[in-house]
């Protein structure tokens, strides 16, 4: 077990580093979008230099200065480019101060060093110019986590209860009703359900707020504002949990050992609670952990629809066309990658924890 755990953990770290590295290299290689305001741009490039992503060079040769000036003015007309992409040419009269990106591989190692030694994920360029990405994330993560965890605690008990109910009353009216509801809920895209929830309970009946209140609003609205996004987020997960728990439980209910338990004289309730439930849990617990990852990425669209100031909404803002904020995107995707990978690690380990019969990594 220990050996298996270690292998899985190491493997997760390998995947994590691979994904983050690919992501960093590809995004850094794309055309950059520095801050638009001049002063912020200066601060930004100075920081890039101090973080080791750029170097400063001076161009004093009058001929070159003129060429660069020409090319900066009409970028399309010059055939031979002297301008380097993602570099910043600061015109200082008779000379150019050039902020040149260092080779990508050096940037990469500097990036790793900055993260490992200083936990420095770079600064935002467009969304909140020159604010450290980690600070932005830190202010956004709590809302997203609150939302997802409330959703998790909302759908797990209800999903289990409905699944058990449907399995125990198999082929009754209730079972059929639950099955139909599950089929519908599982098929509806979350943005459709969310839109209708807002339309009916927000605008139509006026019971609940139509969008998430700003952070300075206090009172009950802080709590009621969670109801709609939690519902919109968890309907799909709720339906699939109901479906799998019904399937698992009804399979266990038909097995011989349950018949044996009944013949030994256990009541139906005892048999179900002690024997059937525990056995049906085995595939369910990992499924629930995995669903948290789905929930997290599904919350992006819910955050956009309901204007929730979470990580998903800031991600979409950082992805505004021709206004990309790559450092922020890098930070947010790293966040999502880390969460999902560790959830998957938990899934792998949970098989062994939930069901002691499974000995992970054991030789045959």
């Amino acid at each position, binding site marked *: 077990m220990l050996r298996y755990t270690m292998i899985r953990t190491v493997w997760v770290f390998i*995947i994590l580093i*691979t*994904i983050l590295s690919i*992501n960093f290299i*590809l*995004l850094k290689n*794309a055309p950059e979008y520095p801050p638009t305001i001049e002063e912020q741009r200066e601060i930004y490039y100075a920081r890039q230099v101090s973080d080791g992503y750029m170097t400063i060079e001076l161009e004093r040769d009058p001929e070159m200065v003129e060429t660069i000036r020409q090319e900066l003015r009409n970028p399309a007309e010059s055939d031979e480019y002297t301008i380097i992409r993602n570099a910043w040419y600061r015109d200082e009269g008779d000379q150019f101060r050039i902020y040149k990106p260092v080779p990508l591989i050096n940037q990469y190692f500097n990036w790793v060093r900055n993260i490992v030694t200083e936990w420095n994920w770079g600064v935002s360029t467009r969304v909140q110019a020159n604010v450290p990405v980690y600070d932005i994330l830190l202010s956004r993560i709590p809302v997203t986590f609150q939302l997802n965890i409330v959703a998790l605690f909302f759908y797990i008990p209800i999903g289990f209860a409905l699944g058990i109910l449907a*399995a125990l009353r198999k082929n009754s009216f209730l079972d059929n009703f639950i*099955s139909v509801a599950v*089929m*519908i809920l*599982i*098929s*509806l*895209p979350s*943005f*459709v359900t969310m*839109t*209708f929830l*807002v*339309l009916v309970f927000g*605008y139509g009946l006026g019971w609940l707020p139509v969008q998430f209140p700003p952070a300075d609003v206090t009172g009950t609205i802080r709590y009621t504002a969670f109801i709609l996004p939690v519902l919109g987020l968890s309907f799909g997960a709720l339906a699939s949990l109901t*479906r*799998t728990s*019904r*399937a*698992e439980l*009804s*399979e266990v209910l*038909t097995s011989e050992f349950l018949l044996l338990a009944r013949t030994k004289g256990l009541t139906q309730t005892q048999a179900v609670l002690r024997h059937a439930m525990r056995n049906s849990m085995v595939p369910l617990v990992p499924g629930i952990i995995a669903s948290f990852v789905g929930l997290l*990425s599904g919350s*992006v*669209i819910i955050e*956009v*629809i309901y204007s929730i100031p979470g990580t998903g909404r800031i*991600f*979409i803002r950082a*992805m505004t*066309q021709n206004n*990309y904020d*790559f450092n922020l*995107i890098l930070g*947010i*995707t790293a966040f*999502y*990658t880390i969460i*999902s*990978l560790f959830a*998957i690690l938990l899934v792998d380990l949970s098989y062994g924890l939930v069901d002691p019969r499974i000995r992970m990594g054991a030789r045959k």
Partner: protein
Amino acid sequence: MDYKDTNPEVDKSKLQFVQRDEKIFDKKFETKPVGYFKDAMIRFVKNKTNVVATVILFTLITLSILIPTFTSKNYTTLEPRMAFLPPRVPVIENFGMLDGTVYVENQQIVTSTIDPDTGLGIPDPTRYPTDYINMDTLVNYDIACSEVSENCSGGEVNFANREADSASTFKAPGNFFPALADLPFVTVDVSELQLSGGSTLSVLVNDGSGNYVSIGDVTDVGEQSFNIIDAVANPDDVFFYSTELRFLFENSDPSDYVRLNAIELSSNASTDPLYVASGYDLATFETLDGTGRLSRFGATITMSSFEFDAYGAALGDYRIDTFSKAEYEEIVQSHGDSCSVINNPDNPEGWYLSEGCPVREVVSTSEPVVVDGVEYTSYEVIMNYGLYAGYDEVPYYLAGTTNTGRDLFNLAWVALRTSLLIGVSAALVNITIGIIYGAISGYYGGKIDILMERFSEIIARIPFLVVLAIAVAYIGPGITTLFIVLIVSGWIGVASVTRTQFYRYKGREYVLASRTLGAKDSRLIFRHILPNGVGTIITASILSIPLVIFTESTLSYLGFGIGHGQSFNLGPIEFSGVSIGVLLADGRAEIISRPYLTIWPAVIISILMITFNLFGNALRDAFNPSLRGSE
């Protein structure tokens, strides 16, 4: 247990052997053998819900192909006058629902249109033509307003200063010429005031020599009068008296105010006041100096609500200020007799046209402008849109129209076709990659399998947000990005199913036998193993299609997929850039005022997803008899 109960005795003479004299080992089976697919089909048909779902699904697919092909509607032109029409459905319209009318609320009325009999006013006729307002449903009501506008009437006005310990002067517009001999006086009607120590509101008038002096302070609630003559030291010397009405407000606290109902200038000569200011007039007082601030309280504005025939208005008459003469003549010629000119006795500049002509009336003509030797003249005309655009009768837009005036009902089918096409083609690519990858990985096993498994695990672990970010960074939002996001990790499901199937069959005896006979790898893969696992693989593939459509609509909804104006070609057919996700994203902007824009596309995609999932599950159950308990 009684033996006889279960085995009733049978007379031995009635028993006989089935065959005694014939050999049966070469006899043909009387029943046909049930093959793998037939068996699956039998199981598939047994579940009635799934059959119904499958029929609905295939109806949807057929309609999405047929409706855009057979409707003559053009999906590229814009028709702004037909934009945002509500749904109108035959039969149901007779019950007062979905009849093409909208209930318009909170429209400010034009005061001059108030009908003396009913006391009801109507809003601006250029926006809501009177003919199409259902007068039975028209109601007027007052709501509070605080803006300085003539439409806001009544109420009181606060005189106040923004800062503490300051003074400011307010002035009534204009000059007044009261005769001093008639003893004119200013009446101030105060409804409320809050004055801390040292704060005053005083009335200032001309003292006869151009200086403004106070004739008294407002001290209490109620009407107070101030005689102008008090300001003038020697009334007999003033030959011609004129004055402005000024009010000096001095305060010690910024929360101090005086709330006025009205200000009157009257004299003893007449009972009618010379000047009255209340409500709006008071709010238009000028602030001469200081930090004075006027604000209105309790003013109201009259609004109207009514049912409005949106279709009638859209197809009805409308005015075009500059309509080119050439186009006018073309219309007149093409309509022949129905466009004969009738003189307009009231307007010598213009003329009427006979009934049935798209141009109802020419109001005026402009001076010709000569550009490059060609003469251009424009007319101001009143057109009938229904006749002009060729609507013989009021159309039925079952789901209303979009912001560009397109029929949403038909457009949703076009969108569905696009969504399906993207879904199916991305799924096909995924299935192809998945089967090849899974086959290689499963068939060869060993080190190759381990390496390929690790690779696909890494790919599967990349969150789709990462792929989206990279694709958007390099390509920008659009169809290519959409395909990349759909394909990067989409094939993994099919690959792992295929791999499992290969592990299951590659060790079987018949495969070994074939291998012993010298069959090549490709023959073993494609002839012997793949056909056996095909049921499971098909199911996994079919179930991946709704997932792809789901992702497509989500991305398009967020604005990273396709969008209006984009189009892509597949062979000779051009597909529009409108998918269900795009329609829903459009509807989101209008969700409060026009929910029908969202409802119809949402219904379509919901039905599609539900039936697709049911169909996929039915296939899974049909191909997998060992699957118990899950539908």
